[in-house]
């Protein structure tokens, strides 16, 4: 009992230590002096919270078909003629609450883009480390591939990979794996940036004495790469990843919007906008506009954070 409480206390102690270190850090001080960045951080946190616990935040369980009532279909936002406060942002063609659909859609959008950026970082950082550490033909090979890919815009690369994976899997399997496929497509369109940056810094760092010492001690190469070199080249990766997160969110929404992304059974923000786009000309604008603005504010906040982190952590990337 007492052992349990001591370990619990020490865990809290460690947590509060970490919190205190964070509050005293340069980054936190920079945050406090920049109201815009602080605001962006709050907005992004709210988005992440809503996406993490949609059932607590969303007013309606949108995937429970029994709660839908066709009498509510196309109900306008609450402040308009015929609106109701049960559907603050209106209802869609099936009487589904638009606000709740946005919150659940946000979950899909954020999951896909965060996963894609994580995969992209993993690919790019590993290839960058390998290219920078080994040099020689493997370096040339990786960097030539990166050069070729860099001549194509990310959007085209993602669409192309999506199309390739689609025809490789066949239509049936594609439906089932749609989410994984879009994550891979976005990840493959974005790895080059990390690879280039990491390769450059790895070239420098791997000449340092402590790396040479580690090699002489006979430590395994993988250990040297990830424990000795990676921590010293990671800061710009962190900055690029934040900026790329905004790009990934836009890419996911765009792919879903043009019908290549996530299936309508798990609508993301882009899917919602795509569906709503069909009702734009007939006057039911709230179906597309609210998810659109939710998306715009999310990307804007992530971009603001990315700009801030870039200035605070690594002014040379400016």
């Amino acid at each position: 009992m007492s052992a349990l409480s001591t370990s619990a206390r020490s865990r809290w102690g460690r947590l509060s230590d970490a919190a205190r270190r964070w509050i005293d850090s340069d980054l936190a001080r920079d945050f406090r002096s920049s109201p815009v960045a602080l605001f962006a951080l709050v907005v992004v946190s709210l988005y992440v919270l809503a996406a993490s616990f949609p059932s607590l935040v969303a007013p309606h369980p949108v995937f429970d078909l029994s709660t839908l009532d066709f009498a509510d279909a196309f109900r306008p936002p609450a402040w308009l003629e015929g609106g109701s406060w049960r559907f603050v942002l209106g209802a869609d063609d099936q009487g589904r609450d638009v606000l709740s659909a946005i919150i659940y859609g946000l979950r899909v959008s954020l999951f896909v883009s965060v996963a894609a950026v994580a995969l992209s970082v993993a690919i790019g950082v590993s290839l960058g480390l390998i290219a920078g550490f080994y040099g020689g033909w493997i370096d040339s090979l990786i960097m030539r591939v990166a050069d070729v890919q860099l001549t194509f815009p990310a959007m085209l690369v993602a669409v192309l990979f999506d199309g390739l994976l689609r025809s490789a899997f066949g239509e049936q399997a594609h439906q089932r794996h749609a989410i994984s496929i879009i994550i891979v497509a976005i990840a493959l369109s974005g790895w080059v940036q990390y690879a280039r940056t990491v390769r450059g810094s790895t070239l420098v760092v791997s000449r340092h004495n402590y790396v040479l010492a580690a090699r002489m001690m006979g430590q395994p190469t993988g250990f040297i790469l990830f424990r000795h070199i990676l921590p010293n080249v990671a800061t710009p990766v962190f900055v690029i990843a934040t900026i790329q997160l905004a790009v990934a969110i836009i890419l996911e929404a765009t792919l879903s919007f043009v019908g290549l992304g996530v299936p309508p059974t798990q609508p993301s923000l882009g899917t919602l906008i795509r569906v709503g786009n069909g009702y734009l000309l007939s006057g039911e604008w709230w179906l597309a506009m609210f998810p659109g603005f939710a998306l715009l504010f999310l990307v804007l906040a992530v971009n603001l954070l990315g700009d801030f982190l870039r200035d605070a952590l690594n002014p040379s990337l400016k």
Partner: protein
Amino acid sequence: MIVYLSQRLGQTVLVLAAVSLLAFLMFRFLGDPVVAILGANSTGLQRDELRRQMGLDGPLPLQFIDYVVSMLRGDFGLSYRLGQPVLRVLAERVPATMELALVGMAIALCIGIPAGVYTALRPDGLLSRLTMAASLVGISMPSFFMGMLLIFIFSVTLGWLPSFGRGETVRLGSLWTTGLLTISGLKAILMPAITISVFQIAMIMRLVRAQMIEALRTDFVRFARARGLPGRAVNLRHALANTLVPVVTVVGLQLGSIIGFAVVTETVFQWPGLGLLFLQSVAAADIPVLSAFLVFIALVFVTINFLTDLLYVAIDPRIRLSDKGGIA
């Protein structure tokens, strides 16, 4: 200079070769082209016959050479979806996309460069701050949503502009159709071109601003001021002129990315260009069109990159000098 150019040309050819290999592998291994042509109900005998006719029974390297040779002759095969020669399908769509891209880029330059210069000269002015904030919105704005906003405002609410299509087009020569010579064509291109230019305006503006601020700090600009040259001449002739090299690169590269963005814009506005074709082909897994598209886009990109490099040399004599004299 000649060494440099031939090196660049060599790289370009290498990229094209790699891309055509990719296109060939796509064509050959993603789905069976024979089955796609004959249909699922064909007999094994028919398939073997066609496979022999198409030369698909030979060794792979030979097939690749065949593929490249027929590609060089402009023969990309038949579209699975449309049943027409791929080259003709592509050629019909090129003018629409090119006009969209060029008009969009023109708008972006006309707004982006002055805005960048202004915000660099008056960094603390209210208008500058507003412009900077707007540029962040521009970078964050998904282009399809921009298009929908424009449609909602100018087509649905105000009813001023058409929400889809190219309007009336005029035929120039045998291949090119243009929408720029009719009133309805001009009205139709306005919203798609603005949609495509929003991101570019923000990009160009931020770039010009950053370069301009840098240039204003340099010695030759300060000396020019000290010589008593009028502010306008210093700002434009000395500072702006030196920002143009990176701007030209980015504009060159962005012209390519505009064609990428066109996929989305063309979908929103049902613009009958390459982007729409590309999406329809991806959705229908129309591999011959996709592989031809891949080669075509690669060709456009490496050409743009190559021309951009040439322009560099034309704009900035230092590159020429260092290349000849071997200073760098």
